[in-house]
């Protein structure tokens, strides 16, 4: 009886299904990934591309017309968008630059041995673990003109208080400072892992040859760290260009749009003004900017450097 049953399985639908799966294993195992990617990436991207070529407004024009590439062109006739592009790179370059310099310095420090290193390293990493909106609320208090700790400190040493988030000229530097404080630990983490994975032979050879610390850093450490530096810069640049929550919470793109970045401009267009088509077109432009940054940094990584 048992033999008959197993024969049925061997020759029945179940057996044929198992055989089919065996033959098409690569296809079957990829189906979940394809469905996932299509649903969460390809479909939304296609929808954004489609939306960007319409004049869709959320409430007032729910049945949009196809307008081709009009939104892509009109984006560059909007002075706020042009300023936002400038602000985005201003923030990303200075913020990521500051994070890199400080991150490398602290990584080099934590790569050495000293008493209480584990404790200091843990403390140093804490901002990275904090939520953006929570730290924004704290920094709003720090930046308060009349009662903020920064101005009280400045006044204490006889310096005029600064209109941190109030003055259009100071608002972006204030956000850059928050960005550096918040994200440098991440930079430190990647660079420190890089430093700890480096072979020691080149350093010993350089020391025997009489190289100074600066020469060792410039001509041994940096070249060997190239891959790690590239990863850190690529990741932080992408996140720097995309920075949104601290901007919205601390300055809300003000004063006088002095801190409006591409991301915020898209947000205002989509959800404040409800021009979904224009916002989608700007979103696509934004994507190209991020892609360009990645390509440039990847090229820098691949390039053969001579020292």
């Amino acid at each position, binding site marked *: 009886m048992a033999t008959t049953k197993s024969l049925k399985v061997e020759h029945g639908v179940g057996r044929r299904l198992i055989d089919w799966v065996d033959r098409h294993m690569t296809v079957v195992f990829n189906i979940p990934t394809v469905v996932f990617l299509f649903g969460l990436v390809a479909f939304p991207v296609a929808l954004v591309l489609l939306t960007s070529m319409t004049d869709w407004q959320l*409430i*007032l024009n729910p049945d949009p017309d196809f307008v081709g590439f009009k939104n892509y062109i009109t984006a560059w006739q909007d002075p706020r968008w042009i300023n936002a592009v400038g602000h985005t790179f201003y923030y990303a370059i200075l913020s990521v630059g500051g994070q890199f310099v400080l991150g490398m310095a602290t990584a080099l420090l934590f790569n050495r041995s000293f008493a209480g290193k584990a404790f200091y390293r843990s403390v140093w990493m804490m901002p990275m673990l904090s939520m953006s909106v929570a730290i924004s609320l704290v920094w*709003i208090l720090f930046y308060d003109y009349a009662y903020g700790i920064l101005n009280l400190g400045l006044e204490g040493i006889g310096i005029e208080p600064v209109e941190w988030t109030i003055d259009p000229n100071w608002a972006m530097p204030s956000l850059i400072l928050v960005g550096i404080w918040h994200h440098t630990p991440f930079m430190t983490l990647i660079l420190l892992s890089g430093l700890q994975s480096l072979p020691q032979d080149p350093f010993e050879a350089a020391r025997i040859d009489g190289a100074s610390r600066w020469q060792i850093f410039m001509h041994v450490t940096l070249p060997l760290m190239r891959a790690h530096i590239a990863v850190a810069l690529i990741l932080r640049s992408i996140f720097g260009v995309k920075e949104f929550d601290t901007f919205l919470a601390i300055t809300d793109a003000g004063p*006088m749009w002095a801190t409006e970045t591409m991301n915020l401009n898209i947000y205002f267009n989509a959800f404040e*003004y409800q021009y979904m088509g224009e916002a989608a077109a700007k979103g696509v432009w934004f994507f190209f900017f991020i892609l360009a940054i990645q390509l440039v940094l990847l090229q820098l990584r691949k390039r053969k450097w001579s020292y």
Partner: protein
Amino acid sequence: MGRKLNSLVLATTVAVGMTGTASADVNWRQFEGSTLNAAYFTANYIDAWWRPMAKQFQKETGIKVKMQVLQAGQIRKKQDIMLAGKDSTLDVLMLQMDNRGGKLTAAGHLEDLAPYLSDASLTPADYDYPGDWLGGCINTERVIKGQSHNNIVWSAQAQLLHIRKDLFKKYNVKVPTNMAELEAAAKKLTIDENGDGKPEIYGFLSRGWGRLTTASFASYLFNHGGSWFKTTADGTKVSNVNSKESVDAFEFYGRLIREYAPKSALSNKPPQNAALYAAGKAAMHQELNFWHGLSDNPKKSRIAGKSTVILVPEGPGGSFPNLPTTSIAISKYSEKKKAAWLYIAWMTQKHIMLKGQNAAVPMCRRSAWSDPSYKAPTPGWGSSAKHAADYGIAIAKPQAIAIGQMRDAAGEVMNIAIRNGDRAAIQAAADKAAKFMTALVAKTETGMDFRGVMPSLGKRMKAGIQQEPIAADGLDKLGQ
């Protein structure tokens, strides 16, 4: 005594009987077991009135109300997305008609409530709408000519000037009745007690951040004779923010903030300003009247009992109380419209709104203000808030379909007025904003009769103020 007692018993019996008869037509339990989804703003009235009443409503009707309460900016976006997606799970929404009312009306997203109002099985016979509603409130319900009756206005919050009675008295300062006196008071009450060049008390505190300023600035704009828009001879709606009177107003308000307010006002949102005022750091605070609840709360405020509110003083253009009312409406796509209306009708009954009124939530029902059980937080609050609710108009934002961009454009002029103060610079910024706003009106309102603010209404209000000079009587009338 016996006859009096008998009369009282009879009167009470008749009153109770009448109420019973009126309400008997509505079976409040006809939708028992239903659940409604409501999307509301965060405000003091949610915990003071809406939440406790929702519990009582469920007890009396068997209908559960699931309230989603988020900050105004967030809930507006959520409502818009749900309405645009014709989401049937949104039943009841709170909105300000002077903000998104025009847009939602034009798009047809709000249910016409007229059939429900006239349905005796859904609306109590003693509902008395619009007879029991204050004029200013009713005036804010319709924003587009020919608009259906798609909302019930319930809250008569007004933008009023909160003043420190004790400081006015201590420094012998006259309660301002015009703009010149207001500035003089702000100057005199900017007090540097220890002489370190940094005032301990600032004379004036108001919104100074971009688009948010439109709400607190509106009365100053209209009282100076300016306006957000005007109608040209050929009937075209154009921006008026660059007129001489409007620029005068920008210059005046900008100067008040620049010279008599703490610099943090430039980045503060209303809650931070209200906290500064409650901490005793300012002598005058321009804000919605519900913030009086914070400054008058002894547990949260250092100035409890020392503050009251007055109307923004009259200007060369008259007196225009700024009344950004709040309405409640039903989504066109709700599958429980009748139950939703039953909820609205129940919440806006006389005795239910009276409970809100007694919880310091200014209501739109006239009877709530005149009820013997009602006691205003301060006499000044009562008279000023009532006056604003009666005669006010919805001028808090540039009334337009593209409201967000209009507020940002006006906010940019205000930024220049506060930071720079130079007349030519303000005029240049206003000219630029006016050009942008006019173009935006042409782009978004073609073929639409958006009401805006009618000049004749302004004249009526000016007359109203003169008949009831609240601030002019000085401090005695303000309960000191």
